[in-house]
């Protein structure tokens, strides 16, 4: 049996553990998908309100959100089968976003349809949920810049709560691109880079 120094052994263990934990836990695809779908919805909503053509709302959001869920389920199921590792962090992250997605869907549909609150408050409420999601994602992903995105969502929520108005649909669209689609693209690039590195 070879002789190995205990300290070297611990360094070896730590290096392998750190290296293994680096395995990508978020590919960013869902952020890109939902960011694009919701931005389309917000812009169409804004222009349909401006043009007094609200009939489009009957099918717009149910179609977009339904499509989003279907694509997400198919995409994530395929990714789970193909995935070479399963980590606790990835599991937690998946449940955080599934929970957030359900909460946002309930706020978006049930909340507004029931008349519990004005439709203008949907955006700041959703912004708050996304902030929490990004804060946790950043911690689990091990990237501070991802956690910092939550600040953007929270500032946006405060602005939209304090100054309500139709402009919030445009502001929320810009936030979707800036704080969801663009981070998603960065995460996807990082994921691809890690896959090649492996």
């Amino acid at each position: 049996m070879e002789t190995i120094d205990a300290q070297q052994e611990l360094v070896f263990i730590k290096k392998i553990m750190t290296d293994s934990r680096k395995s990508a836990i978020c590919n960013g695809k869902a952020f890109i998908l939902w960011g694009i779908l919701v931005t389309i919805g917000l812009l169409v909503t804004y222009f349909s309100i401006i043009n007094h053509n609200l009939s489009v709302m009957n099918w717009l959001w149910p179609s977009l959100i339904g499509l989003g869920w279907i694509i997400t389920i198919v995409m994530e199921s395929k990714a789970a089968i193909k995935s070479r590792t399963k980590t606790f962090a990835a599991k937690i992250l998946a449940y955080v976003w599934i929970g957030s997605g359900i909460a946002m869907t309930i706020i978006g549909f049930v909340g507004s349809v029931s008349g519990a609150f004005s439709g203008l408050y949907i955006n700041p409420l959703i912004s708050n949920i996304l902030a929490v999601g990004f804060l946790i994602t950043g911690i689990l992903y091990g990237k501070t810049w991802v956690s910092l995105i939550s600040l953007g969502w929270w500032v946006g929520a405060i602005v939209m709560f304090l100054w309500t108005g139709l402009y919030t649909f445009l502001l929320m669209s810009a936030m979707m691109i800036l704080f969801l689609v663009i981070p998603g693209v960065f995460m996807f690039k990082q994921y691809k880079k890690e896959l090649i590195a492996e």
Partner: protein
Amino acid sequence: MKEFDYHQIDDVIHSRIRLAIMSVLISIDEADFIFLREKVKTTDGNLSTHLKKLEDAGYVAVNKSFVNRKPISRYMLTQKGRKAFEIYVEHLENLIKKK
């Protein structure tokens, strides 16, 4: 440089490759054979031999399935393996403290 007291350490874990396998599996829940091979940086045959030793000791469990008709073996640490790894690391830390 102080060396290990071989009477106190777990012989099953005390091998570079088996220790590497255990270190990978302690940090993630489950990993397939290819992932382990890349992290441990060894050959298929060598990895299989060491995985078998860990399986025989009850430290590692394997889950075999088919994805797109290709066989996939996913490995995970058992409770016994987790405990053994903890004790092993504890021994190392104690050795360093005694220095």
